[in-house]
């Protein structure tokens, strides 16, 4: 399976590492093309395209990719039992992580809180 979204995909742990080192604000949604994940990707695309969050890099990553262990094994995700895992990185560190579906308002609210 691949992620059929209009977001740029992260495909390796090293790429993610480089991404969060070189960008202050990074949001990564790690999921599948499932019913709980698709609305989150759509919300991210909409927020990215709104121009209100130009300081944030929006990316996704396939949950089942072996390299996605970098997200699946985060301590912040230890209790998560619902896709997608959505991680908000600030200055290279996890500032917030959520599990399961989020709508655009919820994502926007976290972006305002974290960034």
């Amino acid at each position, binding site marked *: 399976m691949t992620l059929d979204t209009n977001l740029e995909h992260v495909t390796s742990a090293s790429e993610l590492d480089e991404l969060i080192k070189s960008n202050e604000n990074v949001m990564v949604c790690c999921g599948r093309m*499932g*019913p*709980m994940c698709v609305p989150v990707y*759509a919300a991210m695309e*909409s927020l990215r395209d709104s121009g209100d969050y130009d300081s944030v890099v929006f990316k996704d990553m396939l949950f089942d990719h072996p390299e996605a262990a970098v997200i699946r094994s985060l301590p912040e995700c230890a*209790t998560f039992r*619902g*896709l997608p895992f959505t991680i908000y990185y600030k200055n290279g560190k996890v500032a917030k992580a959520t599990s399961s579906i989020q709508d*655009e308002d919820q994502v926007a609210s976290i972006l305002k809180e974290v960034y």
Partner: protein
Amino acid sequence: MDSYDTLIIGAGPAGLTAGIYLSRARQNVLILDSGSGGGQVTLTHAVANYPGTGETFGYKLASEMKKQAVGFGCKVLTNQKIRSMELEADKKIIRTEKGDYSGKTVIIAAGGRPRTLGIDSEKKFQGTGISYCATCDGDFFTDEDIIVVGGGNSALEEAVSLTQYAKSVTIVHQFDHFQGYPHAINAAEENPKITFMMESLVDDFLGEETLTAARIRDKESGETTELSITGAFILIGYVPGSEPFSGVIELNGRGEIVTDEDMSTNLKGVFAAGDIRAKKFRQITTAVSDGTIAALNAMEFMYGADPDKI
């Protein structure tokens, strides 16, 4: 204020179909969606009964419909929460948090959303034990004890599907009988991993960071049982997204918009289509049918019944 021929509320299959028909007829059409668009079909993993597509993903079907509508010139705006509306006059006005829009006709196709139990702890454990999608989250509960709340086809079929992961599945249902088809009931009853708690309600979900138990009450005796579980799948149907229209348009006791067979509501020039309206069957195909009928009748309302103009 931006003016259009038709304002469509909701970008699911009904709204997008109406948008396709109207914009293809060179009407100036705006679709407003309170979320990210696509409707409940995006919450469906696989769609196998929509004619002509074979088996496809729900999100893909919705995405294709949107692409088709936009391709004909339809404008789609997402995350538009309605603040107020004036639908009785000839010029109909809808105000959202992001802008004001007017139209000669309005088609309400705002759909529905999964019904929740409405107890405080349900929200707390969403993503850490409580789920609304067995296909998405079933594998997080491998070899664990879980419950499925509900008694319709979705609940029964998903309970059977979850037995491929879970150690045990308890179906908790408020009535003494199921609402599903006989084959779905049989499949659940014949599965050795599934047990039943009939005429029972979930009063509370318990746990610290993750779900560890559910408090279940027998409706008849009032006795409560604390069932040790790590997962709960809530599959108790849908509610119409008609709250913004309460007091504005005629709704029935279930909160669905009342229409005639032309999809006309009690207000002139205002139509309703899809899952938000009162009807028996809620399928993608029936939503598409409703959207078509609403669009053609909106055209007839604006231009009369001359088929050359439609």
